[in-house]
């Protein structure tokens, strides 16, 4: 009989054990541990002979059974005041609990299931409202968030971060920063741009970026008197600023 038992038909050692108990018509509260251990070990052995990859969990259960068997064989000491627990107790508890969920699992299988037994209307509102279709938006939770980060990090070389920050010293990036600041404040003095903390290279790039913006007619430079403060101001409405970005590639300063 046991020859037909294959480990992959069981979702785990508890499943296998339950099967053995049932097929030997044992009472789950009074498992004949010697017999069941023997049966269990035979199956495990056969599986190993068949060169099956016997999962660690099945071996662990084998060890548990052997341990319970040995405790059952020990003579019960009469002097002990408290009643000793049946060595099988924990296993029985686990088996009963497992049996419950196994039953529920079978019931789940029988419940009418969406897309298998029950179907929804396929009417798509988006077909009507062209234009505001939402590029495959999905509802997300913590898992999706963590998964997204996990996926991104899988492809990243370790700690390549700091270099990047330094490398971002491109004219395009600085154009964006200037625009960002100008969107906030509309008018800014030159001095506010050229912060004292700037490195030489950054000063140059910031300057080039400013010139580029002037060339694109996105920014005006104003100076009231010679040597007085130089002011930068946006010359186009902020909502048109996005049109600046496509030209980034054409800059060629990088």
């Amino acid at each position, binding site marked *: 009989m046991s020859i037909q038992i294959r480990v992959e038909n069981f979702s*785990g050692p508890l499943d296998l054990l339950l099967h053995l108990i049932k097929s030997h018509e044992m009472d789950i509260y009074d498992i004949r541990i010697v017999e069941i251990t023997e049966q269990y070990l035979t199956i495990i052995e056969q599986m190993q002979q068949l060169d099956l990859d016997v*999962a660690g969990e099945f071996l662990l259960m084998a060890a548990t059974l052997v341990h319970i068997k040995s405790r059952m064989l020990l003579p019960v000491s009469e002097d002990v005041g408290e009643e000793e627990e049946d060595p099988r107790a924990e296993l029985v508890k*686990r088996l009963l609990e497992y049996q419950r969920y196994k039953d529920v699992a079978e019931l789940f299988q029988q419940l009418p299931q969406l897309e298998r*037994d029950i179907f929804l*209307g396929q009417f798509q509102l988006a077909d009507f409202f062209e234009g505001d279709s939402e590029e495959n938006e999905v509802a997300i939770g913590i898992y999706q968030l963590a998964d997204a980060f996990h996926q991104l990090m899988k492809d990243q070389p370790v700690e390549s971060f700091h270099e990047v920050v330094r490398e971002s010293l491109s004219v395009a990036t600085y154009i964006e920063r200037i625009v960002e600041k100008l969107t906030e404040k509309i008018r800014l003095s030159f001095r506010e741009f050229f912060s004292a903390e700037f490195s030489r290279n950054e000063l140059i790039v910031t300057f080039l970026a400013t010139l580029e913006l002037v060339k694109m007619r996105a920014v005006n430079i104003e100076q009231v008197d010679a040597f007085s403060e130089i002011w930068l101001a946006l010359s186009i409405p902020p909502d048109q600023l996005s049109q600046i970005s496509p030209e980034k590639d054409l800059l060629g300063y990088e």
Partner: protein
Amino acid sequence: MNNLRQLVEAFIFASDGPLSLDRLSVLTEQPKALIRPVIEQLLQDYAASERGFYLAEIAGGYQFRTVAELAPWLRKLSKDRATRFSKAALETLAIIAYRQPATRAEIEYLRGVDSGGVMKTLLDKNLLRILGKKDVPGRPMMYGTSRHFLELFGLRDLNDLPTLKEFAALDPEMIEADPLDPEPVG
């Protein structure tokens, strides 16, 4: 509003998920007290007539669904998008459904096997969700079933799950002994 019924019906029909009373109230700009009787009426109307679909109460909301008896026919639309579950996946789902919030360690103790892979599959299928971390050393993640789980199995809410006692009823010996505390359903 005379056409509230029409509007409610249209919203439920056009929504991609079940619509709750709250949501319907916001959408129709009408108090819930007005919407509830409309829903009641719709539920009755659809239940009374022999229709191809009916108004179902799912995941705390309302949704039109085809009737179960037509399943063999409707499968011919051959959409074949059904989720197929392994035994391991259903067991894991069952444990989490009843014990939520459940940690991976609990699930693995109850099943007797490593369940990481199965859990990841269920998470990917959006049937589980992470509920946060448990306030015990190591702060393990806690898992529960998702809204999509309710939708998939056509459950109103978690209380709609068959009670474990009902299960025990299938096996009289188990009731007598009932060695395990009935798990509160979250």
